[in-house]
């Protein structure tokens, strides 16, 4: 029973939200707005749950001599943002919280992503060595795309046309086919959830 009622709950709310889409009226607009707002509010509490889980795990690590320092660094970073962000105006430029955001969060995240330039290149070399026709096509396309910013003299203009054509025709066709496949998969999963076929989100007893 403790699992059956939530499944009916999902079915009912899911069907109502699908039906409201096909009945354009003030009432369905109201329902759509409130339902989305309510989901956001539940999400806020879910975030608090995630933060609590993170803090609990990090406080436990404080007892481990090997992990103590790094757990303390994470907790320091977390609490400094909480204390400096207590006032809403601290989210704006010029505050201590914004300075930390701009000089700690942004540089580290940008550098981590820039590191991928090295790893993507080496992984690609290992994975896509031109052993087959398909791998050769992939590599050749990637090379043409990457070479568009290189000063190639007279070939530059030809390459620009090539890149524009690749991006506008075969690339777009591939992305469009993949998007349709992803869409069908996502819709099938949603239907399975609403009908109660997929119920892993309920967890185990």
């Amino acid at each position, binding site marked *: 029973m403790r699992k059956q009622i939530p499944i009916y709950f999902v079915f009912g709310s899911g069907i109502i939200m699908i039906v409201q889409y096909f009945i354009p009226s003030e009432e369905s607009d109201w329902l759509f707005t409130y339902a989305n707002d309510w989901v956001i509010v539940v999400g806020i509490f879910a975030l608090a749950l995630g933060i609590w889980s993170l803090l609990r795990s990090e406080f436990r690590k404080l007892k481990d001599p090997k992990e103590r320092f790094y757990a303390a660094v994470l907790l320091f*970073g977390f609490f400094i943002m909480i204390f400096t962000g207590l006032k809403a105006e601290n989210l704006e430029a010029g505050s201590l919280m914004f300075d930390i955001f701009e000089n700690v969060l942004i540089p580290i995240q940008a550098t981590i992503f820039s590191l991928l330039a090295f790893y993507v290149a080496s992984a690609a070399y290992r994975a896509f060595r031109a052993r087959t026709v398909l791998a050769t096509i992939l590599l050749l396309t990637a090379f043409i795309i990457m070479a568009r910013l290189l000063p190639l003299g007279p070939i530059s203009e030809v390459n620009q046309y090539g890149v524009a054509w690749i991006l506008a025709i075969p690339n777009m066709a591939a992305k469009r086919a993949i998007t349709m496949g992803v869409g069908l998969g996502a819709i099938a999963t949603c*239907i399975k959830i609403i009908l109660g076929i997929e119920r892993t989100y309920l967890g185990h007893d």
Partner: protein
Amino acid sequence: MEFETIIWHGLAAFLTLCIFTFLYKDNPFYKFAERLVAGVAAGYWTMLVFHKLFVDKVYHTMATGQYAYIIPILLGIGMWTRFSKKHSWISRYSIAFYIGISTGVSIPVYMYTYIFRQISATIIPFTSISNVLVVIFVLCALFYFFFSKAHTGAFNIVSKIGIYTLMIGFGAGFGLTVMGRVALLVQRILFLKDYVREVAAFIGG
């Protein structure tokens, strides 16, 4: 250049170098920066959600005497029962509400954006070779994922064109990703160079 700015940029430069040390191997500097960014990001998002969603949306609405958010607040609090083995079943109602509304809203949206919009963009007049190629490539790429018919004979040719189209798409995606990462890397290197100049100018007066 103010002393305070030099200090903040110095912190950003130090953290950038900490992340770059990972190119050698995993080390305490990298771990320090990694844990710091995890804590700072968690704290930043917590305060952003608190101010922009909880205070602005929930607290201010409730303060004006509108109690429409009582139900999602109760459902949200219900999420926290996951910490109790005895009462964790209550959280299923919150999750069921979240999942039900989200999937119900998603189905028409996915249907429209991922399917109908893509199909309507593909149904184009054959006024140029490019238009013809787009339609052929999309159909061939879709056929590659169609397994109800054996890919033999003429269907094999269609399927082959489909996989070649997909490979060009993946190659373009790969090339653009690498270019994006390289641009980030260049930006981080330029930041370090500028910082050295800033410090030199500050010392030189």
